[in-house]
């Protein structure tokens, strides 16, 4: 043994042993530590939260009959009114004229209806008669045609019998050949004639029956429905209602009163003007519940719709079943959200700032993963999947890049299209250092 090299060999072995351990330690130090999660079936929840202020209580519109002249207006905006207090008074004479005008209209409409009803009856009887007559003709035709066919049928059969008899009978051998021949042709000719007559009778009969049937149908049709009667009735009903309102007003002395207590928030009529269909007055009353206004960014607009449920929170307490009543866009592109609540809550005063939260759930997606797992690179979205692979150092985890496309996402979850990932893939959601495709990864020491 050459001692120098033998010793060298041993030293080399020791050095290698040392670096085996050192490199293992170094390597595990460099490898990215990741947390992984399996895709799960989930509904994507979009939660839009925004700050809102309690603007004013719910406004109740007070409407008066349209087209009436306003006498005097008693109240101004911001005034506190009680229930039933007078807001304005209509010009009584104008009111009376209007009511009488209305009555005349109703009368004329009624008369028109009666006239229509009358001549409808006449038309009805007329039609009945024609119908009966058509029916008779039909029956007669049917009967007649069946007689004719029967007669023709019997004659035909007689002719047939005559031939048979002639053939079988002795008469035939009494005659000479030529007489026989002649008799036979004569009998056959007669038979054919009868057959022809029978067919004529048949078709003739059908012909007449068909005509009679058509006549019956024509008679049976209803008279053309003239809709004018219904229209008039509707108009009458509508006018009667208006008349009723007029009478009520006249009894109330043409007063327009406040439906409930509250502050007048809007006066839309002036003296000497005609009342319009729209609200004459708006009164915000406490009982009507609360209205909130809030501004949301355009991006969230997609997730908020009229009628979504909203939860309102004010210093810790949350109030449920508010709902979005209106969305109107504003100049700067953001949207004004009007939210109103069903039952009354005294906690919310006008001017309070509250946080509104609209939660909206999408349909059930089969593969949804945390948003952190999605990476995008020039319009290509992909995720990394931790995959076991058999390597020199035993089975280790490697990152594999999988292309996916995102159907819908919110700030925590993203729903993926089917097919790219399966339930048992381990998607890398976050990592302590940069992960690349094909690179080794390690599960975070949680």
């Amino acid at each position, binding site marked *: *043994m050459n*001692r120098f090299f*033998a010793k060298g060999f*041993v030293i080399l*072995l020791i050095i290698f042993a040392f670096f085996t351990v050192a490199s293992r330690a170094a390597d595990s130090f460099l490898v990215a530590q990741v947390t992984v999660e399996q895709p*799960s*079936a*989930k*509904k994507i929840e979009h939660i839009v939260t925004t700050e809102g202020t309690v603007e004013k209580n719910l406004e109740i519109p007070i409407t008066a009959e349209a087209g009436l002249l306003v006498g005097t207006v008693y109240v101004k905006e911001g005034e506190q009114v009680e229930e039933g207090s007078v807001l304005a008074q209509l010009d009584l004479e104008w009111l009376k004229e209007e009511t009488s005008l209305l009555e005349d209209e109703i009368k004329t409409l009624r008369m028109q209806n009666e006239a229509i009803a009358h001549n409808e009856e006449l038309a009805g009887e007329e039609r009945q008669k024609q119908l009966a007559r058509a029916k008779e003709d039909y029956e007669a035709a049917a009967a007649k045609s069946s007689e004719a066919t029967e007669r023709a049928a019997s004659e035909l059969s007689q002719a047939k019998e005559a031939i048979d008899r002639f053939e079988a009978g002795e008469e035939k051998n009494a005659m000479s050949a030529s007489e026989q021949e002649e008799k036979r042709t004569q009998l056959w000719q007669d038979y054919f004639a009868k057959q022809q007559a029978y067919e004529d009778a048949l078709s003739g009969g059908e012909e007449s029956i068909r005509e009679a049937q058509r006549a019956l149908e024509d008679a049976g049709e209803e008279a053309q429905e003239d809709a004018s009667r219904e229209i008039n009735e509707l108009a009458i009903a509508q006018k009667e209602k208006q008349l009723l309102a007029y009478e009520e007003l006249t009894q109330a002395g043409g007063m327009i009163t406040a439906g409930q207590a509250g502050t007048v928030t809007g006066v839309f009529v002036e003296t000497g003007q005609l009342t319009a269909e729209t609200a004459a007055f708006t009164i915000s009353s406490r009982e009507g519940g609360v209205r909130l206004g809030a501004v949301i960014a355009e991006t969230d607009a997609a997730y908020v719709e009229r009628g979504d449920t909203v939860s309102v929170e004010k210093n810790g307490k949350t109030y449920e079943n508010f709902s979005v009543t209106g969305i109107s866009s504003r100049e700067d592109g953001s949207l004004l959200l009007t939210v109103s609540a069903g039952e009354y809550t005294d906690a919310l005063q006008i001017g309070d700032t509250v946080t509104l939260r609209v939660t909206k759930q999408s349909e*059930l997606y*089969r593969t949804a993963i945390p948003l952190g797992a999605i990476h995008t690179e020039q319009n*290509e979205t992909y995720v990394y999947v931790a995959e*076991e*692979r*058999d*390597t*020199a150092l035993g*089975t280790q985890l*490697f990152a*594999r*890049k*999988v*292309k996916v496309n995102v159907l819908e996402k919110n700030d925590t979850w993203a729903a993926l299209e089917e*097919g*790219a990932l*399966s*339930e*048992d893939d*381990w998607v890398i959601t976050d990592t302590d250092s940069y992960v*690349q*495709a*094909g690179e080794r990864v390690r599960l975070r020491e949680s």
Partner: protein
Amino acid sequence: MSRGKKRKRIAGLLLAAAVAVVSLGGCGANGEKETDAGSAGTESEVSSGGMGRYLETELSLPEGVETIYALAKLADGQAAMFAYGGGWGLYRSEDGGESWAKQEADDAKLASVFEGYMTGASISPDGTAAGILVDYEGETPVAAVGILNPDGTAERKELILPETGDETDAYTGLMQKCAFDTAGNLLVQNLNGDLFSVDLETGNCTFLAGDSSIQYFGVAGEQILAVTSDGILLFDSTDGSSLSEDAVLSDMIQADSSLADVLSDFGTVLAFARETEENAVFYVNHDGLFCHTQGGSVSEQLINGALNTMGDSTVSFLNLVMLDSEHFLLSIIDASGQNRLLKYSYDAQASAVPETELRVYALEDSSYLRQAVSAYQKNHQDVYVNLEIGMSGGDGVTAEDAIQALNTDILAGDGPDVLILDGMPADSYIEKGVLADISSLVQEIADSDGVFENVRKAYEKDGAIYQFPAKFYVTLVNGTAEAVAAGASVEKLASYINEGQASLTPQNDETLLKTFFLADSAQWTDEEGKLNENIIRNWLEQLKVIYDAGNWDDTQQYYSYSGGAVTDLLGTLSPVSVLTGEGEVSYGSLVDMTELLTLAAADKQNGMTYGLADSDGAKSFVPYMLAGISSSTKQTEAAEDFLRTLFGKECGSVDGNGFPVNRAAYDALCEDAQSRYGDDEGIGISVSTDDGISLELNLENLTEAETAEFTAILEQADAPACMDRVVWEIVLEQGKAVLSGDVTAEQAASEIMQKGSLYLAE
């Protein structure tokens, strides 16, 4: 001997001994560590102990039955089902659901009694079936209950809701779910979460309990389990008194709030069994079937959902029935809305982990293959698919090494069950009888979904098919009408390019060689497989002409594949470059619908057209994902199932890597392409070339005519390109030398002949 020497010798011996011990110990340990060939078990190691497992079998529904409205165990132990299929019927089964006998009843009477929209039904232990019918016509919906007594008589009672005093929030008649408890009382729940018990004689309901957050309810024994979005409320089913909340059940709901969802046509993600043993509640969700004894701190998992249809998250449950501690019946609605009846029976011998293992071997990994495996695994929970990738990349194993290892396995008799033959010596495998005949399977798919007949004929060898592709694509020529005509052969194309001073769209030498190789190689070998030298020489010369006309700079990699182990195919046809004028003609492969849309849009805009590069007569296509079944497999049935999934419509209709040979999948893709941009007239994308020209390309839906034209071209291709890796490597090596001018076409051709014929002679 001197002492020094002795000491030295002893030291030497010690050293040798030490090294030996280490090594022996080392590899001794290795010896015992039995690492079988299959990879370690999958992550979701089944925890339910060693032996014994509930096996899932699907029972056939009674003849004609489409919808199962109620399923229950009667007092006499029989299973009963109340279902609709052309008519209502109560079916009884003595043998635990295997066979069903219909209880006769006067169908007409039943039809009238159960007329209207039934929202729920249940069967009482004594066999009376009750169904809740709601008619929506009037403004306030009115509910009625149809009752079918055990003796076959049936009557219908209006549900009389108790008065609530004020008119505004009277109970809504919109009844949602109903169930009998073990004592035979019928319980009903309406949309606002109010629970009533119904007196069957009179039909009037007494209010039991109610909470607006109740989504639906189940019955266990005489307990109502009302499921809300943040827990389960318990009520006594006789008097409605609320019982103490059960933490375990509520935690389960809090853990996964989707359990509270009522899915489409009233299936639910959670179902309770009415039968109880020592107040234990049995319930099923997507994780499996659990038994939870009330007051106990944990739910014991009886069945692991991952191993059978329970785990399939697209399925929702209707009724769970516990026949006895070893048999359960479960009626479900699957993703396609079909009602199915499953039976779980305990088998002590069945091992906990699925025992049938299907080994699928492929040289290279591919996203298409992974999709097929996960789709197959989902529908075949009892089969464990072991996907072995020959060249798992990264550690430099060459194709030859991988094939050598595979051949050793095959010859040793334990080869894989399914072989993905891309890049493998498929012909020699067929010659040596390694691959089984799958023509019956292909015929089956042809009958059900239809198959591209030209592709099938290409792979049919005297009546048998040994290998079959899942996808295929063709090489096209895109340009003016004469260019397309010139695409008929390499010579014509070369001469066209030469005189017309036209040039091919830019690509590097390897891509050019590969595209033309795939298009023309089918006709290089004559019948007995001899290479034809002058065809190859001519081919090389023409390619040189085309390449020089293009004078593109080689260093730029035109078609670099994206990173990651899994690389999807990229079409080499670039109609966009024709549009932007980088080249007058484009010659290359088109591999998916998106590229077809781009091609159609570009052609519309610049008036070009396209045609099949038929290289004088031999119209060849390129197969992708060729697969075959090993003749020595013991899992023929599972292997054929896997191929059905691989060639099936579901996998085929994912766009990419070529066009599906499965006709139904291809048609689905066509429809998608025809409606991809919805009804608006398409989207405009701006396209810019490297020298700055930016153009607007307007992508529109494919029209019927365009799709038909393309399908016709696909159907013309009748011979597969030569996919032999060895021949390709030789051609690539020599081709590059010719294109870069180092070697003349003759030398290269003779070199190819030499090596090629050597290879073919072996």
